[in-house]
């Protein structure tokens, strides 16, 4: 097994509130991995711990073979250039145009000529299905769906090995959401990247996710492929996957 991310016994506490109490999971190379759970189950916190925005109270995360506890500044910077992150609301820099947003890391970290950067930006825009003229607009001037696409283009700017997506399809219309899923699948196959995402979207879960972890009761209550997760009898899994709607909608997949 080629594990890209390993999470070992994560405990997170904010004051007296315990968010995670021993979370374990691993993510293999080249798979699309989803983190699921009710609101308040600590999905976003877990994601923040993976992308080094928060430090867990106890436990260890390793990414690309490097342990994040006591990581050196140099190693941390090298990991950061190996991943792309798409935030839930895009988090594009509002003082820059879309093109500048996509180019910012290339400008800071590489010696690529300006002309080449411009061409790279255009190719990223095309890759996520945005018109080239969108590049000259500011984030406040484009729609929510376009912000997500632009955010994805920025996350892909450094040719990452790993892609983190925080609710990529939330706030998109159903058609836009399916297109986004197709895009991510295509990118995975084209570029061979590993995708980690938080999602509630049943269509995405049934349609594109390879493996997933269910967060409930402060732990991972089920992990694995859809079929494996469906074996679980945990109340959240029962409620989320085995309700009338999913039974009706995805009859072939849910027993």
């Amino acid at each position, binding site marked *: 097994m080629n594990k890209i991310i390993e999470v070992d016994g994560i405990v997170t506490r904010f004051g007296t509130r315990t968010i995670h109490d021993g979370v374990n999971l691993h993510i293999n190379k080249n798979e699309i991995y989803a983190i699921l759970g009710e609101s308040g189950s600590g999905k976003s916190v877990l994601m923040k711990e993976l992308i*080094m925005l928060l430090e867990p109270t106890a436990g260890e995360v390793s990414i690309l073979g490097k342990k994040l506890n006591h990581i050196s500044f140099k190693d941390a*910077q090298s990991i950061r*250039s190996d991943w792309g*992150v798409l935030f839930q609301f895009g988090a594009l*820099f*509002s003082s820059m145009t879309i093109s500048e947003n996509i180019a910012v*890391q290339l400008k800071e970290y590489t010696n690529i000529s300006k002309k080449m950067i411009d061409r790279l930006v255009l190719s990223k825009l095309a890759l996520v299905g945005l018109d080239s003229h969108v590049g000259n607009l500011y984030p406040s001037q484009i729609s929510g769906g376009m912000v997500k696409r632009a955010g994805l283009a920025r996350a892909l700017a450094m040719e990452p090995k790993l892609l*983190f997506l925080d609710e990529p399809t939330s706030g998109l219309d159903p058609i836009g959401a399916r297109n986004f899923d197709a895009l991510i699948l295509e990118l995975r196959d084209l570029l061979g990247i590993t995708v980690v995402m938080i999602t509630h979207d049943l269509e995405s879960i049934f349609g594109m996710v390879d493996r997933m972890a269910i967060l409930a009761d402060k732990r991972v209550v089920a992990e694995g492929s859809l079929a494996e997760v469906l074996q679980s009898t945990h109340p959240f899994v029962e409620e989320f996957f085995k309700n009338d709607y999913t039974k009706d909608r995805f009859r072939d997949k849910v027993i």
Partner: protein
Amino acid sequence: MFIDYLRIFRDVVSVEVVGYSSKQRDMYELLVDTNHHIVLPYKENFVEKIGENTVDIYTQIVDFIRFIGEMFYAIFHTILHPREMRLKEMVYHIHQSGFNALLIVGLTAFLVGMVIAYQGAVQLAKFGADIFIVDTVAISMTRELGPMITAIVIAGRSGSAYTAEIGAMKITEEISAMRTMGFDPFSFLVLPRLFALMIALPLLIFFADIMGIIGGAFASYMELGISPTMFIDRLYEVLEVKHYLLGMLKGPIFAFVIATIGCYRGFGVSDNTESLGLQTTSSVVNGIFLVIAFDALFSVIFTELGV
């Protein structure tokens, strides 16, 4: 309320409610149902609130010291690697908080200079010491009021802008995005603002000094009939360079205070718009207070030193 009364009455006598529609009955049942489960939220008492606020203040102080530490780390890092300085942003902020503030700073200083001259004129005229108005205006303006007025205007103008800008970036997760890309928010956001203000504020103070003295000269001419030529002659005699230099020395220090508070409050914004408003308010209040406090400190130090 009706339900509460009903309950009280029922304890004593039997009550029958008549003449209600089916909608009203449903509503009544819903209310009785929910009223049953209501547990009033626990209200803290006075002592608990004092304790909580004390802990709050303590954590804020620790937080602030940590912020200052990180900032100095970034400052030294920039001094050792001057090529990593964000020149473009710095120039932008010099333009924003320096050049664009010229009008308001100049006008304020002019008016303050005028007010001092008018007020002083009345007193000095009693002794026939009209010409001393020049000393009053020139020394108070360059040494004390010029720097302080400028700093207060800038604390209200740029300090609040820094907090709001950084705070909004915090809410939209732009700062988190920067971190995941390996961009240090201190060298990208804090230092350009800090350096820009430390350059811009002394320049603004210089401008304020001049405008204040012009305001004073104007008022002296109107009230005491001291001609501008006489004013400048006298100015040349009484305004020692040290007064001007002492005032200018305060510039970078006030700038440091304002920018630090402004940025610190910006990073203190949590994920809601209410805290953005609160932090911007305290940024301005803290900024102005600290400027005045530092000014008082300087007054004491300079007087004790005899300069």
